[in-house]
């Protein structure tokens, strides 16, 4: 068999597998409904943007395979903002005013979300961001929904797990970016949970060594350690200096990219998150299987968030009509929605409405995720 014919057969087989994953195809016809998406496929946010793009494209196939929006297909136009808010703003202007999309999904990063929100809010274009709600100005933007939890909820989830293991003296290692934001929410909540933060150590984003900070946390003799960062470094350092107390990490470091970089340190770490691809919840199973077939890898939170965002806007379009105005779509969106990642309620004040009960608590054991039985009760 020549190389070219082998490649052709392989491509054919892949296409067949891909199509069969969506079962019986429903027919769609007519002009496609355009939905814009801005994700960070390159730059510092690529770890988020690439999985989000995968989730979006899979959702597009799924929605169209199920008949689209009242028989009309949807087309998700994905643009890369290179992790830069200025680029995100230009892309949003292009998608909204140039390509005339009906709604916008993304961006991946908070700064870009706030920048783009200025355009979508002013022009009443529905937007579903792949971030938790950020600065105060976002509370006034009632047409910008969020499919990831606000940082206050992430901080609450960490404290709920600490409470469950009866840890009241906590040491915290956090970075100067994402970690700083979660930390700002964690401090006032700690008192409410009866938790004393015995050591709070900050390190630079991209730091290659945090041993000094980890040693200070160890010296304070905490009963558990929180790591709030988007980096594998603090996890490695915590193991190197033999901190034996339970380590609880925020969702920011849950991607496989970070877990692989942790190496042998990816062990005995608990993460409050949403999707454990190795052991999904019953309502997540179909999505996880579909994703595995399409991409030959296991999805996590950001893939699921993007999948949910596309389906939420599709549901709003189905409810309000394919040619509905932005304002009507926004109104249609403001309702509870049971997603793969979480149960949302976009009529909530934080434009997310994710309850703490949507969190699952995974545990890294020998570099593999397992789902713990712990859930926060209603």
């Amino acid at each position, binding site marked *: 068999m020549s190389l070219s014919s082998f490649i052709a057969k392989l491509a054919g087989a892949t296409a067949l597998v891909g199509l069969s994953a969506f079962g019986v195809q429903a027919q769609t016809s007519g002009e496609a409904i355009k939905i814009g998406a801005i994700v960070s496929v390159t730059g510092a946010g690529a770890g988020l943007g690439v999985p989000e793009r995968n989730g979006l494209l899979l959702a597009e196939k799924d929605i169209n395979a199920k008949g689209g929006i009242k028989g009309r297909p949807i087309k998700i136009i994905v643009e890369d903002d290179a992790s830069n*808010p200025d680029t995100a703003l230009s892309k949003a202007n292009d998608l909204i005013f*140039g390509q005339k999309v009906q709604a916008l999904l993304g961006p991946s990063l908070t700064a870009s979300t*706030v920048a783009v929100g200025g355009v979508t809010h002013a022009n009443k274009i529905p937007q579903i961001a792949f971030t938790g709600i950020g*600065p105060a100005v976002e509370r006034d933007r009632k047409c910008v929904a969020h499919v990831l939890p606000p940082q206050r909820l992430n901080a609450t989830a960490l404290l709920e797990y600490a409470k469950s293991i009866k840890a009241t003296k906590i040491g915290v290692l956090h970075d100067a*970016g994402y970690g700083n934001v979660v930390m700002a929410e964690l401090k006032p909540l700690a008192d409410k949970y009866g938790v004393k933060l015995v050591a709070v150590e900050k390190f630079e984003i991209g730091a290659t060594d945090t041993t000094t900070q980890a040693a200070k946390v160890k010296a304070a003799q905490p009963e558990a350690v929180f790591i709030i960062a988007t980096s594998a470094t603090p996890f490695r350092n915590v193991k190197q200096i033999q901190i034996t107390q339970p380590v609880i990490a925020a969702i920011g470091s849950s991607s496989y990219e970070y877990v692989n970089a942790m190496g042998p340190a990816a062990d005995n770490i608990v993460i409050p998150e949403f999707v454990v691809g190795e052991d999904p919840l019953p309502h997540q199973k179909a999505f996880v299987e579909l994703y595995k077939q399409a991409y030959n890898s296991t999805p996590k939170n950001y893939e699921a968030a993007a999948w949910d965002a596309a389906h939420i806007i599709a549901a709003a379009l189905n409810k309000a009509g394919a040619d509905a105005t932005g304002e009507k779509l926004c109104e249609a969106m403001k309702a509870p929605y049971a997603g793969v990642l979480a149960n949302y309620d976009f009529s909530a004040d934080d434009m997310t409405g994710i309850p703490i009960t949507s969190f699952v608590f995974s545990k890294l054991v020998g570099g593999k995720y397992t789902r713990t039985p712990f859930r926060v009760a209603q």
Partner: protein
Amino acid sequence: MNPRTLLWLVPCLIVWAVLPFVVPRNIADLLVFTGIYTVAGLGIGLLLGHCGIVNLAQATFYGLGAYASAYCTVMMGLPSIVGFLAGAAISMALAYVIGRPILRLTGYFLALGTLALSAIASALFFEWDWLTGGTLGIGGIPKLDLFGFLLDRPSRYYFFVWIVAFACMAVAHNLIDSRTGLMLRAMRDSSTAAAALSIDLQALRTKVFVVCALFGSLAGSLFAHHASFVSTQSFTVDRSISFLLIPVIGGATSIPGIVVGALFVTFLPELLSKLGDIHQILFGLALVAVVVLMPEGLVGAFAKLRTRFARKGGSHG
């Protein structure tokens, strides 16, 4: 003004005035960014083309202008003009205080000194979240209001930004054409000879560095009122490098070259992004190609080409 200049200036002005109304909004938005980057790039061009100084700290002054506007308008509720003035004053003062010692350095050492300034400022923008909002930034910066006329869309803001850019170009042109410009070129071409002619090199360099900071700050304030949001991600060392590219690509000694450079760094990434994930590699290759093949920038290469054709035309005639 001679009739020949008028012959090309009038059509150019007409095109400039009509452009935001005929292009799609995203292109108008890019033209606004081109104007903002022209203002920031002019300062770098003055330093690079006329003093031989590589300034990698422009994002610092750009950030100071943007944060001053954001803080004054959002946090303190002051009029926008206060933000512009505060940013300019802080940037110029900082440029003077930092410039006096570091402008004693020359060549690569000076470039590294300015790079260090940019890195320190970038870290402080992150750390001083009580002032800058840190990672979350400051949102809700009001659009500029000129005597009741709200500049709330790119086609309106375009005119304001470009009028500021033209004013900055006029300042730069006057500076280059003045006695100071002559001293600058003397210093660039032979600092020893210039010093022998009793030119105070350090004072001169500091003066241009302060002007550069003023332009950077103005650009930052313009950016803040356009984006309505500022965060640390817009003022990193990467942004300083982008600003340096503007005169390098367009032509450091020519003012139109700065506009060409600003067009290059705003439009090319946008056009290349249509080609998929490799767009950043392609942009890098385009940069290398311009720098290697056109060491005097795009405007310099165009001037050479025009001279060559003129000579050919002359020999045939």
